[in-house]
């Protein structure tokens, strides 16, 4: 692989990293509004408020960048970057289409993705502690407890599909995927999607942010661009979780005319899952802390373990 190709691939992934979250964010504005019988943004950019997020970005850039006096400065300033970078790296290994249409084909791409997504919790703890704010710290502790709990069903569900495909490489998993896996891996699909929602702390799993009791959790003290980075991380998170769900469980680029239209199917499936993530936010009330942990340990983990046994049985029976 020469340098030009490498630069091209990294550039393409960076563009996806910057564009897709904005698309998801704008969709969330409009979809949520219509589900709540509102119109949502209508003025920015003239046509149905399409430029709303760009306007938001301009606004965030102009705001004053405040670091509280009691805060631990370096850690406080570093946290938003640490929150953002893992997701950028994960996007590198998610295959967009058949053959070589992937940022960087890795032999153990799935493992890489799971490991890197897990680093995000460090950023949350950094932000929570360094803010020198009780609400921030409480939010951060809730987030850490939630993320460590849900990491388990998340990884177990992904392990199930890796066992089914017999590989840890994301492009190969998609290649070996067959439609009947939709049924065979259905429990793992649900577990992965729900645990993924909890990993990115989206409603109904937004207990760490819980604006009615913790102001804004670990993001309370952040302003301007650094706050925007946290928001961006949330929306890249939606893209990453949706794309991983589509890749692992919904067959990625499989579909009619996959050879030429594979990338379109992948994007459509990712978009559909992202729509579901937004719908969850509108439809479900926030889970209480104890309900949240109960769901993880008493339902998701046993289901994921049962799925592993089922996957192993079917694999042995087919061999």
């Amino acid at each position, binding site marked *: 692989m020469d340098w030009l190709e490498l630069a091209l691939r990294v550039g393409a992934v960076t563009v996806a990293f910057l564009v897709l979250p904005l698309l998801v964010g704008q969709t969330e504005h409009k979809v949520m509004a219509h589900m709540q019988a509102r119109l949502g943004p209508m003025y920015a950019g003239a046509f149905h408020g399409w430029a709303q997020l760009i306007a938001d970005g301009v606004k965030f850039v102009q705001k004053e960048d405040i670091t509280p006096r009691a805060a631990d400065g370096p850690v406080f300033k570093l946290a938003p970057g640490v929150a953002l970078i893992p997701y950028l790296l994960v996007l590198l290994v998610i295959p967009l289409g058949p053959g070589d249409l992937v940022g960087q084909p890795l*032999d153990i791409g799935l493992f890489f993705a*799971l*490991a890197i997504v897990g680093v995000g919790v460090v950023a949350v703890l950094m932000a929570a502690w360094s803010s020198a704010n009780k609400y921030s710290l409480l939010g951060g502790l809730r987030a850490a407890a939630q993320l460590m709990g849900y990491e388990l069903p998340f*990884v177990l569900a992904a392990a199930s599909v890796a066992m089914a495909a017999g590989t840890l490489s994301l492009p190969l998993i998609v290649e070996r995927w067959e439609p009947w896996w939709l049924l065979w891996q259905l429990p793992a699909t649900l577990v992965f999607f729900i645990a993924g929602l909890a990993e990115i702390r989206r409603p109904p799993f937004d207990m760490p942010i819980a604006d009615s009791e913790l102001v804004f959790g670990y993001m309370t003290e952040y302003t301007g661009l650094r706050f925007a980075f946290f928001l961006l991380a949330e929306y890249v998170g939606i893209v990453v979780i949706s794309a991983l769900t589509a890749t692992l469980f919904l067959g990625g680029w499989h579909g009619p005319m996959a050879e030429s239209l594979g990338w379109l199917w992948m994007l459509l499936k990712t978009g559909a899952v992202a729509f579901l993530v937004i719908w969850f936010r509108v439809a479900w009330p926030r889970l209480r802390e104890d309900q949240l942990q109960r769901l993880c340990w008493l339902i998701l983990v046993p289901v994921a373990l049962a799925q592993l046994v089922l996957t192993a049985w079917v694999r042995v029976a087919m061999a």
Partner: protein
Amino acid sequence: MTAIDVMLSAVGLVAVGSALAVVSTQHLVRAGLWLVVTLGAVAVEFLLLRAEFVAWVQVLIYVGAVVVLLLFAVMLTRAPIGRSTDLDRPIGPALLIGAGSGLGLAGLFAWVFRDMRVNPPPTGSAQRVGEAIFGDWVLPFEVLSVLLLAALVGAIVLSKKDT
């Protein structure tokens, strides 16, 4: 010296430097954060030595779980911002033991492997690690899993309320 050697040494310096910061900083939580840097640098060393799988295990387990658990426990109990001077111990004995064992081990390794040529093994893929664990090392692996199970049961017993 190849490019890999230079990178190995540079990342090694980062690992050692941040490890020194872990033990020398007076900021309690920052020590934990420096540990993230140390363990991350060790993961990069594994990557440079072509042990991909081990590198990502290092990130998943140590950075993503162990350090987070550690930070979590510190923040639950006591995590002041700024220096905590009351936690310091006399530096002399610590320096003696730390530097002594560190330099001793380094010297031992350098002496034992002084004229040994090691060819780089093939890439440490998941398949090779799996074959090694479930082939040659299956008994130690099973024994370790029993040990972990015992620890798990112990944790549950300890945290159970007496009724």
